């Protein structure tokens, strides 16, 4: 270990002197210095992430008035409620569908942008990133206005084709469609920019080699592009799955979980129960349900990434 300062042990030195030199040694170690430098961040994370996480674990074991320890009572209660299972189902549909479409649209758009000559590419890249950089609460308000059943731009336009009026946020299925649509609109640029970066790192000669080997356009994507992008696809999917699963603002603003709880996902339902319904322990229990689901997904995806990282 090169980072350990070599100091000859002074045999027979007095005890306090040895102690001080031990401290000096520890401070000289690179690992100690690194730890000290990251300490502010560690404290910040401990205060803002770890403490609330453990506190919510504690909260989930209390009764509604937070006076009595009920163990797993809150969870038992949740399992018996139909709304809970509806929320589980909706969260999964919302997250999986939205991530799937974000990835698909991001991939297609990234390809188009990649093929734009370098001169105009920056402009397009910038414009296509706009949905992602607008605070989602703001843009969702604009979408809410577009979805308005009576005066909205969408229904007005559709009326020319004899369609509608469509109850965008009033009907359960349309409301689910609407929240997913807005989430896809907001999140696809992130996939686009990640995939674009990944596309740019695929050596052009691999495509040329594939073209000479006889691969057509589709085979080049299937045999060259996708395998070369697998790690980025896996990591962005995982990342987006976590963020989408934990989404709050879009659903909250667009439908507030309605109609009749049919668009509630974990975060919005936890808010409804915990804050609006004043049952903080039950709300904490709901939000804790996201942890095991996301942990399993993370383990699977990261294990795959790791395996391929070692391979290639």
């Amino acid at each position, binding site marked *: 270990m090169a980072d350990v300062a070599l100091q000859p042990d002074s045999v027979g030195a007095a005890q306090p002197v040895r102690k001080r030199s031990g401290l000096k040694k520890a401070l000289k170690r690179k690992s100690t210095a690194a730890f000290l430098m990251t300490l502010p961040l560690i404290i910040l994370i401990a205060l803002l992430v770890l403490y609330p996480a453990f506190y919510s674990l504690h909260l989930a074991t209390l009764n509604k008035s937070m006076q009595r320890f009920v163990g797993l009572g809150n969870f038992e209660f949740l399992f018996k409620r139909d709304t809970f299972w509806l929320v589980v189902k909706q969260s999964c549909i919302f997250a999986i569908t939205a991530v799937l479409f974000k990835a698909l649209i991001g991939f297609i758009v990234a390809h188009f942008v990649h093929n734009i000559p370098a001169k105009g590419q920056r402009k397009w890249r910038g414009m296509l990133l706009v949905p992602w950089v607008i605070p989602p609460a703001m843009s969702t308000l604009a979408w809410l206005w577009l979805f308005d059943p009576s005066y909205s731009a969408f229904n007005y336009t559709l009326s020319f084709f004899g369609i509608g009026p469509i109850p965008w946020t009033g009907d359960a299925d349309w409301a689910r469609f609407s929240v997913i649509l807005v989430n896809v609109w907001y999140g696809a640029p992130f996939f686009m920019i990640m995939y674009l970066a990944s596309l740019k790192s695929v050596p052009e*000669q691999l495509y040329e080699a594939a073209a000479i080997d006889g691969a057509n356009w589709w085979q080049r994507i299937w045999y060259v592009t996708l*395998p070369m992008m697998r790690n980025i696809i896996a990591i962005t999917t995982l990342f987006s799955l976590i963020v989408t699963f934990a989404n709050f603002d879009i659903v909250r603003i667009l439908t507030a979980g309605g109609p009749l709880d049919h668009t509630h996902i974990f975060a919005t339902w936890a808010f409804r129960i915990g804050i609006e319904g004043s049952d903080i322990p039950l709300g904490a229990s709901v939000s804790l349900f996201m942890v095991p689901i996301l942990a399993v997904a993370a383990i699977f995806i990261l294990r795959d990434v790791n395996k391929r990282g070692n391979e290639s």
Partner: protein
Amino acid sequence: MADVALRKVVKRYDDVEAVRGIDLDIADHEFIVLVGPSGCGKSTTLRMIAGLEDISDGDIMIGGDIVNDVPPKDRDIAMVFQNYALYPHMTVAENMSFGLRLKHYPKAEIKARVTEAARLLDITDLIDRKPKQLSGGQRQRVAMGRAIVRNPKVFLFDEPLSNLDAKLRVQMRIEIKKVHQKVRTTTVYVTHDQVEAMTLADRVVVMNKGRIEQIGTPNELYHRPATRFVAGFIGSPAMNFLPCRLEDVGGTLQIRLTDRIAFALPPARAARYNSLPRTDKLLLGLRPEHLTEAHAHLGPGVETFDTVLDVTEPMGMETLVYFVLEGTPVCGRVDPNAGAKDGAPMRLAMDLNNMHLLNEATGVVL
């Protein structure tokens, strides 16, 4: 296998002409090397043959068919790239068989071809490895294997040895030559390394500024260069060029290098150059091996002169000596035991039997 022909092929990028109307006939089984400095258009020419670049004008024919608008996959060619371009997620066997799998060859035949190519290239043990687990030389073999299994009409090599270290480059050069002796596929090979060009080629095509300077066997290029560019490009160290002019003194033809130095031409050379106007500004082209230490007995056509050496470079089997002759830096090759020392005077001999005479203005070898 097939012959390849280029007819007035032009490549333009916006208003820059990278290749300026070249004509080239490559015979079946021939190993042709395109050589030239960077930016001379050699790689562009190769990529046009491959179909990776469109041609702006002219025709390219493979096996007698015009392939101008035929996509790369239908030209029946195989290419080895400078950085190998192996698919990193596929094993060696998968890399080699990729083209055949896309064409839906029977599995048994794919296996047989891959096994045969692996045996030929001595990579049988590596067949299940990924490219990352291979050394540069091994990757190069796999890239060649990928080309061989396809059994194409033409092999195209784009500076395939540039990424290897000097020792491996020599080794792989011999491997490539051996492979060509076995499979005899028509080959077009691009390099900027004239040693590679000379050692590998049946014929070398020297390119400069988008044009072909000269086509010929390695020996022809070395001994009978057509232009100053070829004379200077082929051979290392490069040919020396000394300003001179012709003059008649007492019925014999002389070349005068300086006011002090003039040599009578050997009879064969005198006859060849006799018709040239005496007023032209000329260049005497002389390879370093024809500038050696002076021996006691000089053969006919060998002239001596005294100079002071600037720098000497002992190479082991020979010593390179650098000196200045009337303002022109010159390089010679002397015996390591000839006593050449930095800054020391030395008597050198010029073998005019191997001289070249060039027109200074046009650069044409006379």
